[in-house]
């Protein structure tokens, strides 16, 4: 028998040579308009000021459409339309019929899912894989889920008669534009309210496509109104005296301004704000799975996720191993054209946000943390950021305390459970947390003691219409999703 000559195979070389052929999603079936108007009282109308603003594709920096800049006068029109629709139509409609409208919207969104996904990627810079497989299906499902609640509200809150609130003013962020619109509109309608929604200024397009779908669905005029614009447009909604409810998702700073503005008005308020969520990995965790979970936790949607697992806590005994695996994994992540189906990390949503992220990376370096960035090349055009790790981060570091909202992970180590619980909870935020361990009793110990509204054990960044989402402490109050999400849009009828 001939002796096998053992030939040394090279170790995995992640520095190149693993390129996939480009596989861009076609945009040919998407016909964007040059200009999008406001959707008020069942009609697409020009803003009273005549002003429009541009929305750009952050991956190419090219302007893709003009969008109406809604003013206080437009908001007033929208609120009046919503009030009229509430009083004359929507609150008089039987709950079953109300539900059927919402079902119809869900179905029409499903029909147009691919178009919505492509436009979401063009406008927000998120990867097509994510908008196609996560954002859009979840948005459709959210409508589908809440549609069924419309005629079952009497079962949601035992021994209470609940009624709708009236006009709901809703302000949503740019990180999940269509999904956040669904999270806001679907439960509001199911509970019997009418809506004035303001999308974020950098990502208004899918909300306007949703307006077209809603229009096509035959939903009575004024039940849903969508007013695009900037912060002042949102402020006009918050301060409008005839709005009964404010729902806001966004930064903690703006949330505090809204909480103050609403004080004493009797408006019902829910806030879904920022986070600095801990992702904790113990030495008995399935390390490879955990590394995937860490990557998904912080790099999903370019880290533009309020519940991003942005603070990693690794048990000391496995820290070297985990950090090495993370570095290796970072090198394999594809950063680039969001429309390419191979891309893992797309474009940063806006130039402003990129500036913020870069500022924090500089702060991290100045604070003495060790930085590791992927060696990948970034596209020449567009707003991109390399996936970044900070090692040797102090608990008091600003990068470990403040929300960065980008693909930047801080890594700290720990020895004991008590230590990591204390470190994880040592933040003004309380939105989410992750735990990775094979030990069931330890999971329940941790999930009980972590002061956060959502705890993912051996998984991360999972969402579902049936699953309530929302934070403790300065991450806001109220829940969205599930039975408990209905409570945000109902009042006890005494």
């Amino acid at each position, binding site marked *: 028998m001939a002796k096998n000559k053992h030939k040394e195979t090279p170790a995995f070389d992640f520095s190149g040579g693993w390129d996939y052929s480009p596989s861009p999603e076609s945009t040919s079936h998407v016909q964007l308009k040059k200009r999008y108007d406001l959707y008020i009282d069942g009609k697409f109308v020009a803003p009273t000021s005549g002003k429009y603003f541009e929305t750009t594709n952050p991956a190419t920096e090219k302007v893709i459409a003009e969008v109406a800049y809604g003013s206080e006068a437009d908001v007033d029109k929208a609120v009046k339309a919503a009030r009229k629709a509430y009083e004359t139509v929507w609150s008089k409609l039987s709950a079953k019929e109300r539900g059927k409208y919402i079902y119809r919207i869900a179905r029409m969104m499903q029909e147009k899912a691919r178009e919505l996904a492509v436009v979401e990627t063009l406008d927000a810079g998120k990867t097509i894989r994510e908008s196609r497989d996560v954002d859009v299906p979840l948005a459709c499902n959210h409508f589908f889920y809440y549609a069924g609640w419309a005629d079952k509200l009497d079962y949601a809150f035992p021994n209470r008669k609940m009624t709708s609130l009236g006009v709901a003013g809703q302000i949503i962020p740019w990180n999940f534009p269509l999904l956040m619109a669904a999270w806001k509109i679907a439960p509001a309608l199911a509970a019997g309210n009418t809506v004035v929604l303001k999308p974020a200024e950098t990502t208004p397009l899918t909300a306007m496509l949703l307006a077209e779908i809603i229009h096509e669905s035959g939903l009575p005029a004024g039940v849903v109104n969508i007013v695009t614009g900037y912060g002042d447009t949102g402020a006009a909604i918050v301060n409008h005296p005839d709005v009964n409810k404010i729902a806001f998702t966004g930064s903690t700073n703006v949330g505090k301004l809204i909480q103050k503005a609403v004080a004493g008005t009797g408006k019902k308020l829910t806030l879904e704000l920022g986070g600095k969520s801990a992702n904790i990995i113990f030495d008995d965790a399935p390390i490879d799975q955990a590394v995937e979970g860490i990557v998904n936790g912080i790099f999903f949607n370019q880290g533009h996720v309020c519940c991003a697992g942005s603070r990693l806590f690794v048990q000391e005994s496995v820290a070297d191993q985990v950090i090495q695996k993370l570095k290796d994994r970072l090198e394999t992540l594809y950063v680039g054209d969001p429309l390419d189906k191979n891309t893992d990390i797309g474009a940063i949503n806006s130039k402003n946000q990129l500036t913020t992220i870069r500022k924090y990376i500089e702060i991290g370096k100045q604070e003495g943390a060790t930085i590791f960035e992927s060696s990948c090349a970034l596209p020449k055009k567009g707003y991109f950021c390399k996936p970044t790790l900070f090692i040797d981060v102090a608990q008091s570091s600003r990068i470990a305390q403040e929300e960065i909202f980008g693909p930047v992970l801080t890594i700290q180590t720990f020895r004991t459970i008590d230590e990591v619980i204390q470190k994880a909870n040592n933040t003004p935020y309380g939105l989410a947390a992750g735990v990775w361990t094979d030990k069931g009793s330890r999971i329940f110990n941790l999930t009980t003691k972590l002061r956060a509204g*959502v705890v993912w054990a051996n998984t991360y960044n999972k969402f579902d219409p049936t699953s309530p989402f929302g934070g403790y402490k300065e991450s806001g109050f109220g829940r969205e999703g599930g039975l*408990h999400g209905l409570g945000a849009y109902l009042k006890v009828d005494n």
Partner: protein
Amino acid sequence: MERLEILKTYKIYIGGQFPRTESGRYYTPFDKKGQPLANVCLSSRKDLRNAVVAARKAFGSWSERSAFNRSQICYRIAEMLEGRRDQFIAELVKQGSTTTKAAQEVNLAIDRIVYYAGWCDKFTQVFSAVNPVASSHFNFSTYEPTGVVGILAPQDSSLIGLVSVIMPVIAGGNTCVVLASEQLPLCAVTFAEVLNSSDLPGGVVNILTGKETELVDQFGSHMDINAVIYAGGNTDHATALEAGAVVNVKRIVVYTHNFADATQENPYFITDVQELKTTWHPIEHVGGATSSY
């Protein structure tokens, strides 16, 4: 010779102790005839801060006790109050009630404590959910206490209002700092003595006496109070709380209920100061969906 009555010193209740206010100040509420009721501590902002420290310290172990144990301790409060019925009736009469009304109020207070004692180990069952997510995960949501709750008790009631706002808060595992009615504070201090003799750990309930106008802003802006219940009936104070709450995104709950009404009790008073936690864990499908068991 007639015996000289021993007058009671009304002190405040912080961390299971009965100190006087650190400020050394006091005020004198009067009865309907204009006779002084007692000299009562005029609590300061420093007293409030001390009380919050005590409440925070007590929160960990109180919230981690079994719901069954919390239930038993709450029931014990009712037992202790029952034993002091006459004292409370006398105090209520002293503060302007009739004997019949006072007896009714004490009865209702005792029964309401028993009512909430019973909810301790039941409300999470009623309001929790296993959520049928579409992915392969086990997902459930349940309530957890919000933390340290500030309570500004109803001004128009000495006992039943106080009991109605404290019991749902502690039944749910929170600890609290309470400001009693300014003009009707006597029962609050005596209720603190009941709490102190009923196995309730020190610091779970802390009771201050004094003026809302002096302390309302501090309740709103204190960084280590997680939620405030306002039942004082002053809309300006409610607004001040809501505006002050932004410093740490505090939850503010305003009650305008008439707690003397026997129907004004339900588990939603408990869930008002609870946080909903949702937990996810993957499910491994070894046998596959066609398993026959």
